[in-house]
């Protein structure tokens, strides 16, 4: 009977031990902080103040906030963050999850997905540029003489990811770009889509008319681009 009790207690301890080993909890590095420095400007080099900035653990973990601040006068960003040794680090400028999010500007995230204990004490990002966002209405029509058009619409996301220096290969590039595939024919002679795009970003259209060779065209989004009308 006594042996049964001992075995049961040992089993409980073993289960607890192995479950803690496999835990996916964020583990904060003790006795360590990282200071973040940057100057935040728009695409015309005008300083941006009152823009939220935070540090999270991974690209898809917006809720794991290790540190947060707001840009000050002159676009100055200067704050302190915790660091985690079982996660990467992502510095987000104008994150949508923030209550101070400014929808007039894009979101820019600097990403280092490596997991290690001795992370640097200082991250100096120098000048960080946030492009304004522009509402663009894209409309595409099939001409009467065209049977069908295969289209690929490629544009930049409102959130752009940049790898920290030297670790670009760790960052999947496709996450910055979105592709829409569509076909114009008799059933669907037109296509219309409203997008919010970063000023200065390209919109690429790859198209093939009547199953012919693929061609492409690029439109640069400016602060005056409000609609794009294309006919094939």
């Amino acid at each position, binding site marked *: 009977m006594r042996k049964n009790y001992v075995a049961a207690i040992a089993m409980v301890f073993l289960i607890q031990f192995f479950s803690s080993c496999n835990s996916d909890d964020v583990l904060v590095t003790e*006795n*360590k*902080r*990282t200071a973040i420095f940057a100057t935040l400007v728009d695409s015309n080099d005008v300083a941006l103040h009152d823009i939220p900035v935070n540090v999270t653990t991974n690209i898809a973990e917006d809720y*794991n*906030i290790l*540190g947060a601040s707001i840009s000050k006068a002159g676009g100055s960003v200067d704050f*302190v963050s915790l660091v985690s040794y079982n996660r990467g680090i992502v510095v987000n400028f104008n994150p949508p999850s923030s209550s101070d999010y400014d929808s007039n500007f894009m979101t820019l995230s600097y990403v280092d997905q490596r997991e290690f204990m001795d992370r640097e004490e200082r991250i100096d990002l120098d000048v960080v540029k946030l492009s304004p966002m522009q509402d663009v209405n894209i409309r595409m029509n099939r001409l009467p003489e065209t049977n069908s058009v295969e289209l690929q619409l490629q544009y930049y996301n409102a959130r752009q990811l940049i790898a920290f220096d030297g670790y670009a290969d760790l960052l999947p590039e496709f996450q910055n770009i979105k592709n829409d595939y569509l076909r114009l024919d008799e059933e669907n002679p037109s296509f219309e889509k409203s997008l919010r795009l970063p000023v200065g970003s390209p919109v690429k259209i790859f198209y093939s008319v009547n199953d012919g060779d693929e061609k492409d065209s690029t439109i640069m989004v400016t602060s005056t681009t409000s609609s794009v009308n294309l006919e094939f």
Partner: protein
Amino acid sequence: MKNIILLAFLFSISLVNAQQEQVPQNAHRNSYNPEDPETVFFGLSFYFPNGLSDSSLGNDYTFDAGIQFEVNVFITPQFVAGVYGKWHEGEVSNIEKIGNISESNFSEYGLSLGYYQAINREFNYFITASIGGVSVRNTVPFSPDSFRENGTSYKVGGELGYRFNQTIAFFAKVSPYYLNLDIENTAYNDYLNNHFLVDVGFGLRVHLHNPNG
């Protein structure tokens, strides 16, 4: 007349002798009862921590009241050696310069040397110098595992006590201290690690004695 003077002189001598028999030769004024020398006193106090410096503990926290327990032993009638433990919590009011910590639990254990002096039978003062190890257990909102950081506290203290009787005393205290934490960050080293604080509080002492010591 001479007989009366002689009688008065003998009476006064006998009275002085009688008094000397009541007060032991080695009794110190610090003893509430001269026959029972002070040996040890226990202190239990509440205190309110306040940050004085331009540092994270001074700017970014609001502190709750804390509790301190101490044991002090008289090594001479005036000098005292002691140990203490103190605990309080602090809520983070601004995470910008410290990271996303929601609250911190501060615990401190240390050694002290003190000087105890009775002003009169009721009032006394007690001056201490202390050194203690500090452990800060930080709570992170999204992580169930708190993390700890450590430091050292260098403290002086002053207490003004009032003895209700031989055993029980009330005291008010002020205790400024320098707290040095060991967080690694070159850019914000002073802000994160070097703190001046003061505890203001009050409490009760229990004095024990060596009867007929």
